[in-house]
C-alpha cells in the first residue's frame, strides 16, 4: 500500500485561551478537532498516519478550561498533546516527537540547495517534500530547489525514480544532496492483477519490465521490444512484414489449442498490445504462475501480460519530452541462387539422373550462350529494397498536488521492403492519462486513440516471394519496351508488375481505448473502486485489385475486384471492487473483492465487387456482387463473462507472506450447467533475510526470499455457441438448371463443453548480495493442464465437423533464472542475463494419436511426447552403390539409385514405410535466453541486447531444401550444392533427381529428418551507442536533457541454420482464434522460406526533454 498522508494545517490567529464547550454523540474526532480550533483559535498539527481522525467519540464538556478539555478529550484516546505558542501538536503516545526541540519557538524558514547524482551531475525533476505534509517542490534543470517551511526544523524527503530515497532534517539554509543510484528493486511497486504490490511482498512469479528497457529500440510494436526482456516470455515472428502479428507465449506450451497469454492494458483485459505506442509504456508485468495470475483465473492459464502506461507525477513542473528514431531497414535474404549457366547444368543433371534415357533440358549451346550473356537480376533481389522507418513521440507530463497528467502523441512510419507504391504501416497514437483527487475521491481517466494505416500489396506476399525466389537468373523481369515478362516459372504473373501496378490492400483501423476509474476512500483502510473501461475498434479494409498485363502472356487481376470489409467491435469491462488494507502492529492485511463483467460484440460485413471500373474501382456496367459478400448479421459474434474475484493477503514484519486468490467465472461460451469455473490459488513467501538469525549474513546477503504458489487457472478460448448444434447456410452451394441454390452445413454440438483447467505449482527464490548490487531469481514450475479444449481427432468416416471437447492432459514444466549486476561510480556498468526452459508432454489423449501434416511436415499429438512433435523417417546415410541398395530396406515400389537417401528400417521388416517413423524433434524453443549489457561513462552510453534460443528443431521444406522443387521452382541455391556425388558421399543433401522420379519421391516426398534443421541461435538484437549533453550545456540551449544515439537491430546472428532466419517459425500461436489447427498453420510460408524476410535496422535516435 502507498503511504497516505493527511494533515490539517491551520492559520494561527491569536493566542488567547478561551473556555470550551463541546457536547456530541459519536462524532468523528476530526469534527471535534475542528470545533476546538474554532473555539480556541489554536492550530492543531498532527499526522493523519499517526492520529485516526475518523474514530468516533462522545463528549460532554461545558465551560472547561482549554487545557483541561484537551486532557479530557485526548488522554483516553492515547493521544499526547503539546501546546506551543498558537499550536497544539498531537501525537500518539510513544511516537517520537514531531519537534525534537520543543523549547525553540516555531519560525518560518527556508531551505534551498542542489540535488546531484553520484557523479555530481544535477538531477532535474527530483521531488523534495517536507515529511508528513503535502508541501514540496521539484528541482529545476540544474537540480536546484527552494522550499519555504514553517517552524524550526523539518525533515525533507528527497526522492527520484531509480535512486535511493533520502530523509534529511534541516533548520533551513543550504542543503545540497547527493542521491545514490538505487541498488534494489525490492521496494519498487509492482503492478499485479487489480492492484499493485511492493516488490518485497510479492509471492508469485512476476517479472517486471521497465520502460528503460524498451527505449531506444527501432521497433514497430511492443512485443518486438519485449523480446529477450523477461525469461520464458517467448516471442516469435512468423513473418516480418509491417503490421504482421507475432507469436507470444509465456512458459511454453501447456495446452493443445491457443497458447496466447491474456493481455491486460491499464487494468482492462483483452487489449491489442500491438496498437500501443511503445513509448507510452511505463512498465510491463509478466504474471507467470497461478499465484500471480489466478485473479485473472478465467483466461490466465497461458499467463498474463499487464501493461501500464505512463502517468504524470504530482507537483511536477510540465516536462516535455521528444523521442525520435530514424532507421533504415535492410531486407536480409540468406539464400542465393547459383549462376544461370550452372543452374542449367545442374537442372540437366537432375533430369538425366532421374532417367538416363530422358532428353536433357538445355543443350550445350544454351549453356554456353547463357554463360556468355551473363545473369539477369534475381527477381527476389529486384522486388525488395531498403526502406525507411521513423518513430516520433512527443509527451507532456506534470501535475499539481491533486492532479496529474500525461499527454502523448506518437507517429510510426514503417515502410515495407517490397518495391511498389509506398506499402507500409503508418500508426498514429494519442493518449491522455489524467488522475485527480477530490477529497476522498480519486478519479482516473485514461483515453487513447490509435489510428493505423496499413497498405499492403494486393496479392499474397508468400506467393510473390515464392514466385520470385523460384525463378533462375536467366529470365529478365522486363523487356526493352518496359513490358513485364512472364516465363516458364512465372507462368501467370510477374511479381514486380503486381507490386508496382496490381493495386493494394489497405487497412485503416481506429482503436479507441478508454477507462474511467472512480475510487472512494471510505475510511483510511477501505477503498471502493469502480471501473468502466473498454475498447472500440472500427476496422476497415479496402482491397482494390488492378489489372496488369504481362508479356508474352498472363494477366493479373482480370476480375478487377474491389472489396470493402468493415468491422466494429466493442469490448466493455465493468469492475466493482472493494479493497481493504490494515496495518495492525506488525501485521499487514489486505483484502480485495469484487465483481466484473466482460462483454464483447463484433459486427462485420463485407462487400465484394467484381468487374469494377478499371480506373476508379467503382461499380460500372457489368459489375457483379461477389456472392462471398457478407451482411452484418453473418459477421456478428457476442460473448459475455461474469466473474467474482477475491484476494486476501497477509504479511508479518515484511518477513512472512501469504496470499489467497479466488475467481469464479461464468462464460457464455458454455451451456448453463457447465458455465461456471472456479479458480483458487494460494501462495506464500518467507523473507529469510529479515530473520534475526540471519543478521550475521546480512552484510553479504542482503536479501533472500523463498516463494511458492499453487493454483488452478482456466481457459475458454474457443468459438462461441459450441454447446448447441448449429446449421450454417452457404449460398451458391449447388445449382439446378443454372440457378444457384444454397446449401446447409452443420456442426454437431458438444453440450458438455466446459472450462479447461491448468493446475500450476511454482517455487522461487530471490537473492540479493553485495549491497544488492547483484540480484538473482530462480523459479521452477510445473503445470498440469486438463480438460483441454480440443477438437478431437476424428476418423473421416464420421464425416462431419466436430466441436471442441474437453480432452487431454498436458504437463509443462520448466524453470527461469535471471541475474542482474550493477556496478561502478565513474563508469556505470550493468549486466543482466536470463535463461529459461519449458518442456511439455502430452500426458493423456484418450489413447488417441493425431497426426497433422503440412506437405512433408508431420507432427504428432501422442501421449508421452511433446506437443506437436515432428515425426518422420530417419536417414541412415545414402545408398553408395548397387550392393548397398540390394541389401537395404527401401520404400515399396521405389526404384532407388546410389546417392538416394537410405532410411532406417525401424521395425526391421525390410520395407520403409510409415511404421518406420521416428520422433524427430520438438518444434518449440527451449533454453531461451537474453543478455543485456549497458555501460555509461560521462555522457556516453553503450547498450546491447543479445537474445536467442538454445535448442529447437526447425522443419523447413520446399525449394530451400529441394532443388527444383516440384518443378514449380527451377532454381538450385548455393547452399544446396552440398549434394551427393560419388566424390561427395557424405553430403548434406541427396543427389539431384527431377520431380516425379522414384529417387525424387524417395528423397523429398517422404517426410524425414532431411528437413529438420537446428533452430538454435544467438542474435545481437539491439546495439545502442549514445551521448548525452552535460546538463549545463543542455540548459544553455534550452533543454533539460539531450541524448543522441545510434541504434541497430538484428546486426549479427549466429545460427544452426544458415539460409533462413532462425527466428521465423513454421507455427502460429493462434492470434485470437480458437481453431484447433492454429498451431500448425503453414500458410505464412514460415516453413518454406517464403516469409517476408526479417530486416536489419540501422537507426539514429534523439531524446530531448524540455
Amino acid at each position, binding site marked *: 500500500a502507498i503511504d497516505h498522508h493527511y494533515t490539517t494545517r491551520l492559520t494561527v490567529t491569536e493566542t488567547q485561551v478561551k473556555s470550551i464547550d463541546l457536547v456530541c454523540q459519536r462524532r468523528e474526532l476530526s469534527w471535534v478537532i475542528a470545533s476546538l480550533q474554532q473555539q480556541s483559535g489554536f492550530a492543531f498539527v498532527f499526522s493523519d498516519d499517526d492520529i485516526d481522525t475518523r474514530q468516533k467519540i462522545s463528549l460532554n464538556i461545558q465551560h472547561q478550561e482549554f487545557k483541561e478539555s484537551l486532557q479530557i478529550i485526548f488522554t483516553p484516546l492515547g493521544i499526547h498533546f503539546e501546546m506551543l505558542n498558537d499550536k497544539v501538536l498531537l501525537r500518539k503516545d510513544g511516537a517520537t516527537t514531531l519537534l525534537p526541540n520543543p523549547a525553540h519557538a516555531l519560525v518560518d524558514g527556508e531551505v534551498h540547495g542542489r540535488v546531484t547524482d553520484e557523479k555530481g551531475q544535477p538531477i532535474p525533476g527530483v521531488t523534495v517534500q517536507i515529511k508528513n505534509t503535502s508541501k514540496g517542490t521539484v528541482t529545476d534543470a540544474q537540480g536546484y530547489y527552494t522550499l519555504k517551511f514553517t517552524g524550526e526544523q523539518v525533515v525533507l524527503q528527497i526522492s527520484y525514480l531509480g535512486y535511493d530515497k533520502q530523509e534529511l532534517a534541516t533548520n533551513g539554509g543550504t542543503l545540497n544532496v547527493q542521491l545514490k543510484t538505487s541498488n534494489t528493486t525490492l521496494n519498487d511497486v509492482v503492478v499485479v492483477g487489480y492492484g499493485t504490490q511492493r516488490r518485497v511482498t510479492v509471492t508469485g512469479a512476476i517479472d517486471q519490465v521497465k520502460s528503460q528497457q524498451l527505449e531506444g529500440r527501432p521497433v514497430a510494436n511492443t512485443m518486438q521490444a519485449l523480446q529477450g526482456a523477461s525469461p520464458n516470455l517467448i516471442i516469435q515472428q512468423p513473418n516480418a512484414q509491417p503490421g504482421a502479428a507475432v507469436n507470444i507465449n509465456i512458459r511454453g506450451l501447456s495446452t493443445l489449442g491457443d497458447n496466447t497469454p491474456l493481455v491486460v492494458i491499464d487494468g482492462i483485459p483483452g487489449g491489442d498490445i500491438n496498437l500501443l505506442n511503445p513509448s507510452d509504456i511505463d512498465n510491463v508485468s509478466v504474471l507467470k504462475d497461478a499465484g500471480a495470475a489466478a485473479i485473472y483465473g478465467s483466461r490466465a492459464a497461458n499467463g498474463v501480460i499487464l501493461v501500464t502506461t505512463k502517468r504524470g507525477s504530482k507537483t511536477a513542473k510540465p516536462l516535455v519530452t521528444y523521442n525520435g528514431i530514424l532507421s533504415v531497414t535492410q531486407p536480409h535474404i540468406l539464400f542465393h541462387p547459383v549462376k544461370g549457366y550452372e543452374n542449367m547444368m545442374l537442372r540437366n543433371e537432375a533430369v538425366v539422373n532421374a532417367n538416363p534415357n530422358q532428353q536433357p533440358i538445355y543443350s550445350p549451346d544454351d549453356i554456353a550462350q547463357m554463360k556468355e550473356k551473363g545473369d539477369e537480376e534475381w527477381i527476389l533481389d529486384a522486388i525488395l529494397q531498403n526502406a525507411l522507418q521513423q518513430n516520433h513521440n512527443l509527451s507532456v507530463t506534470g501535475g499539481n498536488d491533486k492532479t496529474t497528467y500525461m499527454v502523448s502523441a506518437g507517429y510510426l512510419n514503417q515502410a515495407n521492403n517490397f518495391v511498389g507504391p509506398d506499402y507500409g504501416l503508418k500508426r498514429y497514437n494519442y493518449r491522455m492519462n489524467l488522475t485527480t483527487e477530490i477529497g476522498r475521491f480519486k478519479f482516473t481517466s485514461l483515453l487513447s486513440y490509435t489510428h493505423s494505416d496499413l497498405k499492403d500489396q494486393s496479392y499474397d506476399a508468400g506467393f510473390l516471394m515464392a514466385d520470385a525466389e523460384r525463378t533462375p537468373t536467366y529470365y529478365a523481369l522486363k523487356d526493352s519496351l518496359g513490358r513485364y515478362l512472364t516465363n516458364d516459372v512465372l507462368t501467370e504473373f510477374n511479381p514486380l508488375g503486381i507490386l508496382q501496378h496490381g493495386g493494394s490492400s489497405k487497412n485503416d483501423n481506429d482503436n479507441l481505448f478508454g477507462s474511467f476509474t472512480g475510487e472512494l476512500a471510505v475510511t483510511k483502510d477501505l477503498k471502493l473502486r469502480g471501473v468502466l473501461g473498454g475498447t472500440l475498434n472500427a476496422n476497415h479494409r479496402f482491397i482494390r485489385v488492378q489489372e496488369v498485363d504481362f508479356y508474352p502472356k498472363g494477366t493479373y487481376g482480370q476480375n478487377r475486384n474491389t472489396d470493402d470489409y468493415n468491422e466494429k467491435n466493442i469490448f466493455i469491462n465493468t469492475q466493482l471492487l472493494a479493497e481493504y488494507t490494515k496495518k495492525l502492529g506488525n501485521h499487514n492485511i489486505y483484502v480485495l473483492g469484487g465483481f466484473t463483467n466482460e462483454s464483447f460484440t463484433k459486427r462485420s460485413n463485407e462487400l465484394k465487387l467484381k468487374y469494377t471500373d478499371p480506373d476508379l474501382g467503382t461499380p460500372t456496367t457489368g459489375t457483379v456482387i461477389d456472392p462471398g459478400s457478407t451482411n452484418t448479421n453473418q459477421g456478428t459474434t457476442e460473448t459475455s463473462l461474469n466473474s467474482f474475484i477475491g484476494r486476501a493477503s497477509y504479511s508479518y514484519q515484511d518477513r512472512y507472506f501469504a496470499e489467497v486468490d479466488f475467481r469464479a467465472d461464468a462464460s457464455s461460451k458454455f451451456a448453463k450447467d457447465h458455465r461456471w469455473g472456479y479458480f483458487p490459488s494460494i501462495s506464500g513467501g518467507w523473507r529469510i533475510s529479515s530473520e534475526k538469525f540471519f543478521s550475521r549474513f546480512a552484510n553479504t546477503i542482503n536479501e533472500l526470499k523463498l516463494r511458492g504458489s499453487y493454483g488452478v487457472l482456466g481457459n475458454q478460448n474457443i468459438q462461441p455457441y459450441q454447446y448447441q448444434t448449429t446449421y450454417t*447456410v452457404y449460398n451458391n452451394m449447388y445449382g439446378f438448371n443454372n440457378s444457384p441454390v444454397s446449401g446447409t452445413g452443420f456442426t454437431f454440438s458438444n453440450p458438455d463443453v466446459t472450462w479447461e483447467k491448468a493446475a500450476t505449482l511454482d517455487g522461487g527464490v530471490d537473492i540479493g548480495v553485495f549491497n544488492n548490487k547483484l540480484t538473482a531469481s530462480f523459479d521452477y514450475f510445473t503445470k498440469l493442464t486438463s480438460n483441454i479444449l480440443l477438437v478431437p481427432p476424428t476418423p473421416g468416416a464420421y464425416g462431419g465437423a466436430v466441436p471442441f471437447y474437453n480432452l487431454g492432459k498436458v504437463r509443462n514444466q520448466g524453470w527461469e533464472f535471471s541475474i542482474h549486476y550493477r556496478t561502478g561510480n565513474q563508469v556505470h556498468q550493468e549486466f543482466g542475463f536470463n535463461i529459461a526452459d519449458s518442456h511439455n508432454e502430452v500426458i493423456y489423449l484418450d489413447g488417441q494419436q493425431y497426426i497433422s501434416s503440412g506437405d512433408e511436415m508431420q507432427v504428432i499429438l501422442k501421449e508421452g511426447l511433446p506437443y506437436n512433435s515432428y515425426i518422420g523417417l530417419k536417414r541412415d546415410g545414402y545408398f553408395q552403390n548397387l550392393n548397398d541398395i540390394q541389401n537395404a530396406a527401401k520404400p515399396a515400389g521405389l526404384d532407388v539409385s546410389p546417392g538416394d537417401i537410405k532410411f532406417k528400417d525401424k521395425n526391421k521388416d525390410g520395407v520403409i514405410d510409415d511404421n518406420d517413423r521416428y520422433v524427430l524433434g520438438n518444434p518449440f524453443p527451449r533454453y531461451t535466453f537474453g543478455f543485456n549489457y549497458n555501460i555509461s561513462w560521462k555522457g556516453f552510453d553503450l547498450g546491447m541486447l543479445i537474445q536467442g534460443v538454445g535448442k529447437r528443431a526447425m522443419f523447413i521444406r520446399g525449394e530451400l531444401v529441394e532443388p527444383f522443387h516440384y518443378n514449380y521452382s527451377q532454381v538450385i541455391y548455393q547452399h544446396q550444392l552440398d549434394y551427393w556425388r560419388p566424390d561427395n558421399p557424405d553430403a548434406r543433401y541427396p543427389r539431384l533427381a527431377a520431380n516425379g522420379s522414384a529417387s525424387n*519421391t524417395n528423397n523429398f516426398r517422404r517426410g524425414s529428418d532431411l528437413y529438420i534443421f537446428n533452430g538454435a541461435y544467438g542474435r545481437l538484437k539491439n546495439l545502442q551507442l549514445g551521448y548525452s549533453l552535460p546538463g549545463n550545456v543542455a540548459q544553455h540551449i534550452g533543454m533539460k536533457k539531450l541524448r543522441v544515439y545510434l541504434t541497430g537491430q538484428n546486426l549479427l546472428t549466429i545460427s544452426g541454420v544458415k539460409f533462413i532466419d532462425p527466428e521465423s517459425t513454421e507455427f502460429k500461436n493462434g492470434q485470437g482464434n480458437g481453431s484447433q489447427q492454429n498451431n500448425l498453420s503453414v500458410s505464412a510460408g514460415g516453413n518454406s522460406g517464403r516469409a517476408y524476410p526479417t530486416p536489419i535496422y540501422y537507426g539514429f535516435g534523439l531524446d530531448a526533454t524540455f
Partner: protein
Amino acid sequence: CKKLDLAPTDHFTDLNYWTSTEKASQVLNTAYSQMMNDGYFFYNEGLSDNAFVGRGDNQGALSISNGTYDPSLGRLKDEWDKRYGGIKTVNVFLENVDRVPDMSDTLRNRMKAEARFLRAFQYFQLYTWFGDVPFFTKDITIAESRSIARTPRAQVVDFVLKEMDEVAALLPTKQQYDASDAGRITSGAAIALKARVLLYENRWADVATACEQLMGTTYGQYGLFNSYEGVFLPQNENNIEDILDIQYVPEYRAYSDYFDLAPLSVGARDNGMAPLQELVDDYLMTNGKAIGETGSGYDENHPYQNRDPRLTATIVYDGYAWKKPDGTTQTIYIKPGSDPDQSKKLDEYGPGRVSSPTGYYMRKYYDPSGGNNFLSGLNLILIRYADVLLMYAEAKNELGQMDATIWNNTIAALRKRAGFTDPSALNFNAGWSKADLQTIIRRERRCELAMEGTRIFDLRRWKTAEKVLNGWAHGARFGDPAIDNGYIRAAQRVFNAQKHYLWPVPRDERALDPNLGQNPNW
C-alpha cells in the same frame, strides 16, 4: 453487461432449423454438392493411360500413376473424407426430414429418394477405390467412427443395387421434373448408376437388362444428342443424352480447371495435365480401321489426318485450329520451332518447359462462354446415354449376343453421330470374333468417353491396368528420334497388380480407427 445466454445471429440451431421445406432442401443441396468435384472429374484421367499430370501432383495423379504413392498420399484421405462427408449429410437429412411440418409427402419421399441415391453413389465410389469400406446407413457417433470395421465390398455392392431399384421406383423421370429442377436425380439416373455398378461387377446379363430399361421409356426419354462436340457445350446443357451430371452455374458455382488444361496461347497459366500419345493412337481412321491395321492409310508424318472426328473434339494437337469464342480460329503450334512468333512460342514442346509435356492439350469441356481464367459453369456429365449404349454393346458381346442390330443401335449409332460416314466404319462385320469385338468395343469406349474420367475404372475392371500402366507413357513425336522412334517419353509408370488394384486405407484413418485393417500388400 450482456446476458450469458446468447444465440448466434448467423446460424440456426437445432431448435429452429428443421422447420421448413426450404431449409430441409438446403441440406439436400449440400449432399448434391458433395457428390463429385471438378478436380476429381478431370484429373482422374491422369490416373489412366489417357493423360499425364506433369506439373505438381494434382489430385495425387502423378504419385498414383507413377506407383510411388503410399497410404499417406493426401488424395486418399481427401477422397475418403469427402465421400463420408457426403454420406453424413444424407444420413442427417434422412433422420431429420420427417420433423419438417407442412411438407407434402410426395416431395418428402422424392427428396428422401434423391438423398439415398447420393449416399449410394458415395459408397459406389468408396468401394471402387478402396474395396472393403466402413458401411452404415445411420449417422454414426464419434465413438463409433473410431471403432468401426470395414464391411466386405460385396455387401456394399448389394446395398447400392438394392437402393437403386428402390429409389428408381420413387423418383420422377427426367421429363416429369419441372425444367427448373434440371440436374436433380431421376429414376433414369438410378437405373444408369445401377448399370454401371453391375458393369464394374461384370454382371453382363444384369447390365444388359438395366441398359434395355433405359433404352425404353419407363425411366425417361434418352437418346444421342445430334452433335458429339455439342454434348459438351454450354448451350446444350441438360440435353437428351445427359443422365447424371454435376451441375454448375456460371459465376456462382464454377470451376476453372481449364486454366491449367488449355493451350497456353489461348490463355492457360500452365499445363496441369496433358493427353498421351497412347490415347491419340487409339482413335480410328475415318475408314474405321485402327492406325496399325493394314490399309488404315495412317501416315506417321501427318498423324492427325483422316482420324475419328472425336479426336478433334477432344484433343489439341500440333497445327490444331482452335475455335475461339468469337468464332474465329487460331492455330496451335506445338512442334518445336513451328510457331511463327519465336519470341512467344508458348505452346511449343520443350523438355522442362511449362507447356504440355506430351505435345497435346485438351479441348473437350472447353467452355467458350467461360469467364476470366476459364471460369466455367458448364455441367460435368457423369453418365450419359452414349455410355449406356457402350455398356449394352459390351455386355451383349461378353454374353456372346452381339449382332448387327445391336451393333447398329450402339457402336454404329455412336460413330454416325460422331461424324463417321465411311460405310466400312459403320457396318457390322459378321466375321469378327468375340475377342475382336471386345477390342473394338473397348477402343470405342475409350475414344467416345475420353477425358470424361471413366477410363481408369475401365482399366481396373478389365484388369488390364498392369499392361497399360507400366513402363513409358508417351507424348507426340517431338523427342529424340533415337529413343522410342521419337515419341516423347513423358513418364515412366508403375502398376503392381498385386496391390495397385485397390487403394490403401489412408494412413491417418488407420491411426484413428484400429479396426480398419489394410488392403493386401500395402
